[in-house]
């Protein structure tokens, strides 16, 4: 057994990738057991998830829809997830645990919605401005958290989780007072010109959703990877994240690096906010902290904090959240089943580092020099 574990998960080559895959596999098995317990066939349940995400054909489609329309809708939901998980990943690399992605998303979404989203600005101008507002609002919230950390040494976990609620209630107040749509009980939908997803576009006999920001999400992930690995700023952020004392010794300005980390993380979260509220959703539900900001933590961990890993992990989690709608209607189970599976994956993903340590301990405590290190 031990040998098998080491064979599968040991060694250094792509170890974290293999552990992530292992975590997913185990959680799918656990989730299968849950399906079996509630009397559903897990294979067909997973099939439904893929069908609902447009990755497997359904038996029948409504008019002007096919697998491709489902897939485009899936990408629409995937886009903000990628940004949100990047926000968490960058912060973690810099040694900050950003739980405030939800609040930052709301900030970006709210300010973009109530300004450009309510205006008559033409699309070529409105859409870029929405993105800029998203980035700015998120970055400012991030800067605040970073500043609190370095100025007053307030733990970012506390300040960011509190800001989630503070911001949510502030925006809820303004939405309920000024921007409420009396029928949907959501904020007034943003204008089509400013919306980052084109909804129900008719082409070649189909009604398509087109997530305009999806390419931007992929490019951003690639750029963040480059930024972290190849720039001096990324070098500093990683050094501070790994060891503040050593980074300080090396002459790196730690407080500046912390704020920089949170500004970048916030900007990414802001992008998630505008692509979610001004793209996928089109409006803001008052009184709710978006769960995506929390799922993003699991996604980032599952993606091993690697920007490209985040794309794949986002893909997986979005299959669950998006496919769950179809799954629940098909199998007659509650839609919360998706959250349940996500939670199981989250637990195993969070265990990734633990699994790695466990494996390397079996592998033999440490590399030779380890022999000299007193345990």
């Amino acid at each position, binding site marked *: 057994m031990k040998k098998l574990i080491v064979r599968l998960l040991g060694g250094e080559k792509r170890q974290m990738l293999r552990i992530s895959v292992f975590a997913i596999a185990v959680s799918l098995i656990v989730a299968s057991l849950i399906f079996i317990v509630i009397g559903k066939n897990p294979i067909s349940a997973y099939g439904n998830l893929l069908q609902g995400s447009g990755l497997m054909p359904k038996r029948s489609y409504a008019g002007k829809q096919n697998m491709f329309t489902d897939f485009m809708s899936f990408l629409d939901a995937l886009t903000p997830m990628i940004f949100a998980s990047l926000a968490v990943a960058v912060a973690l690399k810099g040694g900050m645990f950003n739980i405030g992605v939800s609040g930052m998303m709301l900030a970006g979404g709210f300010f973009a919605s109530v300004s450009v989203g309510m205006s008559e600005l033409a699309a070529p101008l409105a859409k870029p401005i929405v993105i800029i507002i998203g980035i700015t609002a998120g970055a400012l919230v991030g800067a605040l958290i970073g500043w609190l950390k370095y100025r007053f040494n307030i733990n970012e976990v506390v300040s960011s989780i509190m800001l989630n609620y503070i911001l949510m209630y502030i925006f809820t107040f303004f939405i309920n007072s000024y921007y409420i749509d009396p029928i949907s009980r959501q904020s007034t939908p943003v204008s089509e010109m400013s919306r980052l997803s084109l909804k129900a576009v008719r082409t070649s006999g189909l009604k398509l959703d087109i997530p305009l920001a999806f390419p931007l999400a992929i490019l951003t992930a690639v750029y963040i990877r480059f930024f972290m690995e*190849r*720039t*001096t*700023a990324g*070098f500093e952020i*990683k*050094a501070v994240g*790994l*060891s503040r*004392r*050593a*980074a*300080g*010794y*090396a*002459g*790196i*300005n730690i407080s500046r690096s912390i704020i920089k980390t949170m500004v970048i993380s916030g900007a990414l979260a802001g992008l998630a906010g505008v692509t979610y509220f001004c793209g996928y959703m089109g409006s803001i539900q008052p009184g709710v902290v978006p769960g995506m900001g929390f799922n993003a933590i699991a996604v980032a961990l599952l993606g091993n904090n690697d920007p490209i890993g985040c794309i794949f992990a986002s893909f997986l989690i979005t299959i669950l959240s998006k496919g769950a709608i179809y799954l629940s209607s098909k199998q007659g189970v509650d839609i919360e089943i998706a959250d349940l599976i996500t939670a199981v994956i989250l637990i195993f993903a969070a265990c990734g580092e633990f699994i790695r340590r466990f494996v390397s301990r079996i*592998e*033999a*405590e*440490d*590399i*030779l*020099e*380890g*022999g*000299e*290190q*007193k*345990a």
Partner: protein
Amino acid sequence: MDNAEYIVEMKHITKRFPGIIANDDVSLSIRRGEIFALLGENGAGKSTIMSILFGMYEPDAGEIFIRGKKVNIKSPRMATKLGIGMVHQHFKLVSNYTIAENIILGQEPRKKLFGFLPAVDFDRANRDIARLSESYGLKVEPEALISDLNVSSQQRVEILKMLYRDAEILIFDEPTAVLTPQEIEALLNIIRGLRDSGKTIIIITHKLNEIKAIADRCAILNRGRLMAVKDVKETSTAEMARLMVGREVSFTVDKAGAEPGETVLKVEKLTVCNEDGFEAVKDVSFEVKAGEIFALAGVSGNGQNELADAIAGLERVKSGHIFLCGEDITDRTIRERAEEGLAYIPEDRQNVGLVMGFTLRDNLALKSYYGPDFAKKGVLDEEALNDNGKRLIEKYDIRSGKGNETVVSSMSGGNQQKAIVAREIDMEGRLIIFMQPTRGLDVGAISNIHKQIVNERDRGAAVLLISLELDEVMNLADTIGVIYNGRINRIAKASELTVEDVGLFMLGAEKGEG
């Protein structure tokens, strides 16, 4: 009992770690009642083989016999049952527990409170320990807190911990690394006393003169292999050193007389507070000239760390001034000081000197990554970083599993230190601060670093060497300062002081007495 002349026999022990053989077919036989020394460079496998004996690792091959009986030691707990005790280099004590509590931990004497409630019998523990400490001449106060003890008392507690568990085979892992000369002498006496009362002692050490002083026999390991087992009386230290490193080592450092130039570092009435707001450095003034090694001797914890950190900019100054080449750098940032030519090899290699999660390559550029050599418009030049890494690895003989790409946390302590020294010396600074540069290193690495220190001086750099090793101070210094309790209580030319003088000042003797 006479069927077992050897109390411990380890036969053909082999232990592999990923990528390296820590012990390669090592056989050791240790006699009852002797002091047996294990000598070897860093990474030679001394600690590994003792960790195997103490049940912390299981060997891949080989057999262990204790008192003639084959055993399979699976855990330290089992080793304890077999009468084996170990004092680790880093003590394993609970600092807010008392001495007695630490010693009985895991083997608490029980009593029944009110006749039925099981409870720890602290009175008995205190009595037992007082008796035990008296019978072995190890003076301790059973009810004192560990956090109030100095290092050598803590070590005594570790020894008592073994004795309390009736250990017969006592393993000491580099016991003198953190002690003053006087404390070392006392410890060696304790060890002799333990042997005379019938215990068997195994001592892991780098220090040849200590082996000479107390050991009966000595095993020499080199890169995982057993080189020889020697009778200490019949073997010269030079011979032992040769076996250990595989070449002749000269003990005294070759160095020409100093040719001091202009003053590079001037510290003026410096007072520095430590983390608790306590004045760890008080009103200290001294100068270091170009081409001079100024060695600051002192017992650990007398303000050396705070002083070095303050000069390098890691610690804020309460009052006083620091001048580098005439310029006041008291309020400069760490990076500005580094750019002015201040290089610093800190004491804590793993938490301060290196980013443990970074690769060797990135650590070798930790202070220069942003400069024009490695970065253009904020983008790192991978090729330049790789070349820099390769060059330093080769030049300073830094050994690692995967060269540039090795994560430094997987490297040995000695090679980690080499990496720091390589990086700092390569800055070609005007002032280089060496803080405990050879702590925990083996003879080969020590002489290598000593040579580099002298080279730096000869290049014209001012060298501030802060060391707890008196030999090191005496061998290298052109000028010696002695720090005690945060004050420098003596500065003199090295030629004007004897080892004994310095030792006395280190323990707080006043001017004039020495």
